[in-house]
């Protein structure tokens, strides 16, 4: 698994601000000046917006839902009456009209509609997984880094376990297993097709990659003078964590990690669903669309290219924007 966290931490340096501006405000100002990052940030917002508007597209433009089969339907393509799916099961390609804008899949479903609905799932899972990762990483990383000693040893070993387990295999195994029977959480039962399952799986798998850098950062922070000051003042350890450590983290590495993890989670969700261990049918996600279409790639490449390119656009825009955030918080690493 790619250790992007290593990339980030290796280039983050502490910055002492001489002026009276908070690091956050300085960062925002720098971000505003970074045209490229802003551009991609807007692209990502557009992607999110378009996916949120999926029902509008489905009802008013394509006039069909994401799961509606149109196998026997006949529509006019370039004036000619064409079956949506031909006798041997090959679907039509993009029509670039309101119906079947990006073509149909083997079940005669509208690819454009599925792309948007699928995007909702992919993005939702991406966000939820990232939140799970961040919370988990903070819990592990801050506790281990701040308290050190045995706490650190035990937590670090636990992180090692998850980290050593080949991420894709862990996620696939968990995904397949949980998809069959669902998960009983005690207070709630998740059915096997709930998207909370892949969200949790992906979220958990990435915890060590973020927890370690956080731990490293916390180890450094706790030696800083403001922590000493707080200790002398008699603050409890918990208070120190909340009033000194966490804010510092939020001003430096947390936003960067969030963006990077978001991109990674979206990509891992696609891989998982591609392997059948993520989103379950009939729900769509960009990964399931890729998997469904992979068998017909030589004759109907649109089945794979459409969700694939959308996926790249989404991940790319988050990555570039995330890099912009990184540069905004820590300009010395940019060299531009």
């Amino acid at each position: 698994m790619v250790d992007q966290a290593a990339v980030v931490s290796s280039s983050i340096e502490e910055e002492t601000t001489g002026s009276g501006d908070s690091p956050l405000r300085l960062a925002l100002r720098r971000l505003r000046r970074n045209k490229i990052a802003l551009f991609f940030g807007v692209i990502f917002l557009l992607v999110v917006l378009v996916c949120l508007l999926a029902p509008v597209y489905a009802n008013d433009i394509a006039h069909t839902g994401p799961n509606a089969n149109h196998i026997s339907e006949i529509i006019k393509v370039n004036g000619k009456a064409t079956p949506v799916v031909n006798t041997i099961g090959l679907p039509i390609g993009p029509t670039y009209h309101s119906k079947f804008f990006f073509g149909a899949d083997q079940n005669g479903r509208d690819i454009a509609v599925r792309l948007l609905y699928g995007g909702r799932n992919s993005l939702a899972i991406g966000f939820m997984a990232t939140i799970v990762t961040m919370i988990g990483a903070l819990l592990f990383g801050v506790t281990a880094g701040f308290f050190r000693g045995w706490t650190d040893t035990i937590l670090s070993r636990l992180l090692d376990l998850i980290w050593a387990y080949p991420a894709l295999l862990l996620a696939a195994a968990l995904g397949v297993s949980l998809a069959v029977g669902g998960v009983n959480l005690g207070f709630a039962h998740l059915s096997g097709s709930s998207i909370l399952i892949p969200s949790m799986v992906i979220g958990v798998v990435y915890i060590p990659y973020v927890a370690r850098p956080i731990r490293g950062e916390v180890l450094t922070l706790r030696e800083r003078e403001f922590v000493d000051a707080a200790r002398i003042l008699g603050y409890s350890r918990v208070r120190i964590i909340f009033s000194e450590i966490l804010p510092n983290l939020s001003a430096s590495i947390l936003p960067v990690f969030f963006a990077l993890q978001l991109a990674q989670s979206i990509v891992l969700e696609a891989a998982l669903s591609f392997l059948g261990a993520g989103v379950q049918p009939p729900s769509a996600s960009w990964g399931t669309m890729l998997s469904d279409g992979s068998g017909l790639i030589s004759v109907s490449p649109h089945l794979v290219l459409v969700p694939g390119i959308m996926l790249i656009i989404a991940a790319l825009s988050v990555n570039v924007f995330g890099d912009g955030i990184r540069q905004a918080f820590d300009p010395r690493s940019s060299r531009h």
Partner: protein
Amino acid sequence: MRMRRTVLGIAGLTTAALTLAACSSSGGGNTGSGNGPSSQNTSAAKSGGTVKVVEGTYPDSLDPDFSYTTQGLEADDTVYIPLLTYAAKEGTAGTQLIPGLATALPTVSSDGLTYTMTMRSGIKYSDGTPVQAADFAHAIERSIKISWGGSSFFTGYIKGAADYAAGKAQTISGIQTDNSTGKITITLSQPYGAFDNILAFESAAPIPSSTPMKVLSNTPPIGDGPYKFGKVVPNGSYQLLRNAAFASYNIPGIPTGYADEVDVSVNSNTTAEAQAVLNSQADVFDAGDTIPAQVLPQVMSQAKDRYQKTPLASTYYFFMNSRVAPFNNKAARTAVNMAMDRPALAKLSSGALTPGCNFLPPTIAGHADGACSFGDPTVSPSAATVAKAKQMIKSAGLAGTPVTVWSETRQPRQNFCLYLNDLLNTLGFKSTMKVVADATYFQTIGNESLNPQIGFADWSQDFPNPSDFYLLLSKAGIQRTNNENFGDVDDPQIESQLAPLEKDPASQLSADASKWQALDKYVADQSYVAVYGYQTAPKFLSDRVNFSAAVFNPVDYILFSTVGLK
């Protein structure tokens, strides 16, 4: 390959010597497209040479007493000859049983419990050891001991086999053999008209009595057939080499083989597999695979004279649980059958399915083509019909009932269920899907406690007898786990019509065909199942081999011993 479960008290079929004559008007025979011959080949192929076979899945095992797939069967039936076997012909003619290692079809006692046969003399295994009568008993015992998936056929019908399986006996008391005379006497625990078909299983083919009681998937036992195994690379390839001695036995009706060598290799990429045969780089496309949609147009245009869609005795349907809402209501089931677009489902199968609405498939006595009471399967239902179906459900007060569609993971089965899911939602139900890993699918829906409402199912014949299919619709077939009567169909009318038919000896099958057809029509009228099609398999060969000489037998699939170069 699916085998049926037995034991559960199928009313005994009394017996007589089994001769399956051709079916009556009920649509048997070769109805595939293409120009292949429908009966016995007249032209012969050249002797010698090497034939290359590609398949998408490696046989689960090359051990005849363990294998349970068509790929294993195709390998084994050239190597091991059972006491009885099927005529090497296509279509309904290929469902006829002929003597294999036995001198003649068995003599059956009047109470249907004793079968007597004599082993041919002079037959030897490919290493020179003579085949003996006791070897038959050993094969049955071994199949039971190493847990062949269909051993319930033996334990259910052969006297003493169940005790042997449970370890209570050292041998099977119901099988008596005499090596000096070659006489074999089998005693049944209950009469069963289709027992001759059981004797035709590969797992009942005699193998040396010295064969150890453990699975030998990759170093299979010695056989006595026209071919023997050569080099085996597990999960990769295997070789069949001609056994020259076989021709000297002069067993009538069993092909002695054309090619000197048959090389079978695995390529899980079925597109590449099809292309290899298209370019004649390989000679035989495994009949158990489907030609992918992306290559099919090329095959159909470039290989017209060597590609033929062959109908199989295999029905594809959606089961509907008649004990649980909403499908315990006949209106709901009929609505599904009315509104189902069978040509659409055929498209999803890349054209491999032939649309149909009756439960018994082609080549099985009682099969009927044509429209059912709820519509014509070859025509997509009109919008008006769908609306009518929707209204039926609404009037029955079933609109909004939550339904779960059970599905396998692989395509096209998942695609069938995706269609069904959408159809049910259109009809007014609240439908969702549950996709289960292929490996556990049938065990999952066969678990009664889950009360599956509707989902994917299919059934391929174990042997050409309609009673094999009616297990799935009879009360006797209901089981709490590993259920095969997924719809829990329990209809006294079916039982009353079924009982006398199953008692009739199998020789009366053609005479009974109209009665089976009537029963099948009743089932369709009651919409107990939502049948949508029958599987066809491709007979697709290279231009190097003689297409008409090669035989695609409905029970044993492609007989490698009939594939030869031009």
